[in-house]
């Protein structure tokens, strides 16, 4: 999926998509992650690290997953923002790039190995096997909770409110 079109509106519900779970695949530091498409309201490009991004009519926290995961800052200037539907108000994840859409079914999904017992168990729902490789399936609620400004350095900025 290219970011040449800056905004993607997502409207399909889980019921419309059938039994398969539709997910958006994105990359952070070379690892591919999957997030439930139903949790995403749009995807916008982040032209450079200091850019403001107008995402909703309300303020929206930007959570850089590199910071949350303890990874070094991205070398690439141009990154992507996933704007999430969130009961507590819109929130956005900064990722390196958006890769593709994928349909995951129950046999594709695997629990995190038991040795993982830290915060990662909140961040990640499990792992998915696909023909293209293993995807890490994120748990949006756990990531947003971990990224609350009073709990993590991952919440980097506030986006500008008021645009469409």
């Amino acid at each position, binding site marked *: 999926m290219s970011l040449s079109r800056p905004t993607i509106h997502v409207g399909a519900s889980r019921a419309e998509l059938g039994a398969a779970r539709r997910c958006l695949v994105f990359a952070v530091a070379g690892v591919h992650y999957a997030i439930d498409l139903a949790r995403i309201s749009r995807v916008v490009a982040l032209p450079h690290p200091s850019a403001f991004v107008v995402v909703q009519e309300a303020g929206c926290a930007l959570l850089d997953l590199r910071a949350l995961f303890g990874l070094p800052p991205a070398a690439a200037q141009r990154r992507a923002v996933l704007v999430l539907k969130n009961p507590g108000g819109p929130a956005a994840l900064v990722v390196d790039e958006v890769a593709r859409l994928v349909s995951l079914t129950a046999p594709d999904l695997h629990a995190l*190995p038991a*040795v993982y017992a830290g915060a*990662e168990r909140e961040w990640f729902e499990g792992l998915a*096997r696909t023909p293209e490789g*293993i995807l890490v399936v994120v748990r949006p609620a756990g990531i947003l909770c971990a990224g609350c400004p009073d709990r993590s350095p991952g919440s980097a900025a506030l986006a500008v409110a008021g645009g469409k």
Partner: protein
Amino acid sequence: MLPRGGARPSPLPVGSVAVLELAGVRFALPAATILEVAIIPSYIPLPCQDPRHLGVVLHREKIVPLVDVGAALGAGGPRRPIPGLCVVARAAAGAVAFPVDRVLGVEPLGADSRLDRLPCPGGITVLRRERWAERHGHQPAAD
């Protein structure tokens, strides 16, 4: 000793240990717990709080956690040695893989053996004693 390409792992003698080497440190693992020794071509570095947990590997169609035993051995911090040689071992919570530099051999474990048991990430316990360093020599053999 190194089943590859779909070969079934050979059973190892009960009551024996496999002597392994990582970063110049010799240690052992009960041979009965070793499922396989294999070249792991790649891994997924799963972000986590414990740096000893390196990620996961896909091995024989199974997702297996990859851990680093180097810190428990005093062999240094986490390594990123993949692709490379890994031991896949049976632990309480299932199979666990960990990188090693070499597999030196398998030897019987005597009843009078005095062993240091070192808990490692992933629920595996490795064994250490000086004799392994003496028996297998101090100079690493050519790969």
